[in-house]
């Protein structure tokens, strides 16, 4: 059984096991390696992608669940909001090891798309699913506020 996917605006067919987590299809079938494997049980958020604009932990979602839906990965970010987030991340030098940051940026972008002026509590709720072992959290928070300000300005 093949699954029809729409990843970053491109229609793709996946012929393998429909229970394969979306993460591995993105990384190994589509070659989009910006989305990372961290835990495999939706605990760390390194694998976060957007499905129809909502965040999804791709390590724990079978590829069949996103058939016909719009999947966006870090490579496919193009909205004004996403660009503001990425710029703020670079401007504030948020990253350290960087491994979790694709997921962080995906979560932050989804937050700002929904809530252009998030409070600290909004940020806590939206970002609590993304672990950063380098603990770049203070800068993540600052970068989200900076992106928000840039989008408003």
């Amino acid at each position: 059984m093949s699954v029809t996917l729409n990843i970053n605006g491109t229609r793709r067919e996946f012929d393998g096991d429909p229970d394969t987590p979306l993460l591995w299809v993105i990384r190994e079938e589509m070659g989009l390696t910006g989305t990372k494997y961290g835990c495999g049980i939706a605990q760390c958020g390194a694998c976060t992608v957007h499905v129809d604009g909502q965040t999804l932990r791709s390590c724990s979602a079978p590829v069949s669940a996103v058939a016909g839906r719009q999947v966006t990965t870090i490579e496919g970010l193009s909205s004004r909001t996403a660009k503001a987030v990425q710029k703020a991340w670079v401007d504030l030098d948020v990253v350290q090891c960087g491994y979790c940051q694709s997921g962080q940026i995906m979560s932050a972008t989804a937050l700002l798309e929904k809530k252009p002026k998030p409070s600290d509590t909004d940020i806590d709720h939206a970002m609590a699913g993304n672990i950063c072992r380098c603990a770049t959290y203070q800068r993540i928070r600052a970068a989200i506020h900076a992106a928000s300000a840039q989008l408003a300005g």
Partner: protein
Amino acid sequence: MHSLMNRFHADEQRRLMKLLGVRESSAPLLSRRVFLQSAGATGLVIGFGWLAPTAADAALPGAEGAAAGPLAPNAFVRVGTDNLVTVICKHHEMGQGNTTGLASLVADELDADWSLVRTEYAPSDAKLYSNLNFGLQGTGGSSAIANSFLQYRSAGATARAMLVAAAAEEWHVPSGEIRTAKSTLTHASGRRATYGEMAMAASRQAPPDNPPLKKAAQFTFISKDRSTPRVDSPSKCNGTAMYTADVKLPGLLTAVIAWPPGFGAKLVSFDATDAKKVKGVTDVVEVPEGVAVVATGTWAAFQGRRALKVQWDESSSKDLDSDALLARYRAQATQPGTPFTKPTTTSAPPAAVKTIEAVYEFPFLAHATMEPMNCVAWLHDGTLETWSGHQFPSFDHMLAAKAAALPMDKVKLHTLVSGGSFGRRANVWSDFTVAAVNVAKAIDGRAPVRLQFSREDDTGAGLYRPMYVHAVKAGIDAQGRIAFWEHTVVGQSIMAGGPMAMMIKEGIDPTSVEGVDKTVYDLPMLAGTLHSPTLAVRPLWWRSVGSTHTAYVMETMIDELAAAAGRDPVTFRLSLLGKSPRAAGVLKLAADKAGWGKPRRAGVAQGIAVHESFGTFVAQVADVSMRDGKIKVERVVCAVDCGVPVNPDVIRAQMEGCIGYGLSALYYSEIELKDGRAVQRNFDTYRALRIHEMPRVEVHIMQSTEKPTGVGEPGLPPLAPAVANAVAKLGGPRVRRLPLTRSGLVET
């Protein structure tokens, strides 16, 4: 890695090669073949010798990526006719920002335009790229910038001198009249050339032996805040940064290993029938580490491993149990061990009027890097290539060669950025590298293979910060001075049983007692002893090594003694810091910036701690609140003295990171052993700090002209004791067992 490794002699690599039975080269050299490589959108690339993982490797966006240059005066810098400066970084980038730091050292002395500076990672070559503290190529012990400070500046100054000499010759002017700035040479006559334009002529100049270096006042990047933003930010924000798992090679297979379920478990037998039925599984092979399931993709490999039937003999380690171990360590701590320090006071100690006895318990800790361990290995044409976050290339290179039964010159390491290490990737067993090579051997080098640890494999693999117990008995005399201090440490030696064992002197592994024996405090009365039991679970350094536990004991006990003496914790500490003005300096700075002694709002208290590790002094004040018996760290004010602050923003980032990593461990981290197995295997049970738990962090950097020291680790040790001291001030218990989940002070 540990700073004490600088006791290694200069020819360390030769010693280790002999120890491991590894040869440097086979003679005669085999001719290198021409390899074909699919290079994605750019089509086929034909190259001689070793492969690059993809074409993207050579053309990363942002400031990463290579430039060729005719001007190559040394192993560290190239200046190209394209006007790009490439800095070759001998240290591993695992998030600490040293790539940016090393590049800035060269760029400063070279007077380069920062936007024209690129970086690349050095090959494994201990002759060219050794850590000057170790005598081997490797990153650790918060030493990257410290050991490179003069070397990389000198490399830049050399290139600059050659560019200037070339311009002087071409323009017929004295070299002293030529000015350099932003990758451009100018002369008062109006002559002007970019470095790119002068690179070819400069390459014909002789490199000067000892090019003069700038004085601090002349620095353009060093210590100039935000003058050199991180070179790895762009690629890490758009998904193009290449980690080990992202390496693409033609026909690349993925392997996972059915690892022993417990420490010391032995493989009895396995049945691969069902595993081989899983679509995509290509091989099921025995390796020294366990049973490898090799597949065309990661998911197939996981599924194959799930279907694999393996029988293990766990009899040798079934009694390994952390509760039992803790009881044993506690009993041992009541007995004196091998002395590591003796009182140096000659007069009889004054009688103590108040005595405090305390036993401290620290759990095993996993590093839990975001990127689980992995390594790509490819045996082909009589050679081996590996791709990984090779934090200690010299160890990985030797051990990979040994595993592949190849001389070292037939082994090439490609060092990639890694998704964190915190000590995990620097180990004398090179566990992930060797296992990947063993899998590559087991499939006869048929294809390149990536060994991937699952999160559960990674967390359960051992190589933990050992469990430690400290027993301390200390007393205060009638004048409120410390009268005596007896201190016993129990815990595995990290150095024992490997090539680092030579670091153990008179039965004392320095990493077990650092921070007690070499405390910043003036404690001539301290009498310390050490027990170093051995276990089936491998120990390893973990961000800040011995100071992960010694700082907690020292700084909470000092706080208790201050309270017993009725003294303020800051003034009490200052009275003991006469021989360590830099420790006193950061203590005062942190206290001042945090508003120490000023009233806090109800339910909030401050705790303070100061510690030196790897030559860097850090003090922290934690503002802690308590509600319904649960604590929250609201803010941490951190003062750091790391000598010349090379990159202030990276220093701030490392302090923030150390505080978050340390708080994570303080709150939650613990690996328990039951029936010889690790209980916690993933982030659901081995919890990590999340954004809502991160305190506000303020970092204050001491201005200094001392030689720079590291910042990757020293921000961690003071955090836990500062928090614990605040908890006591809030009326909570004196916490002596970590993590805090054990005392119910945080939500479980």
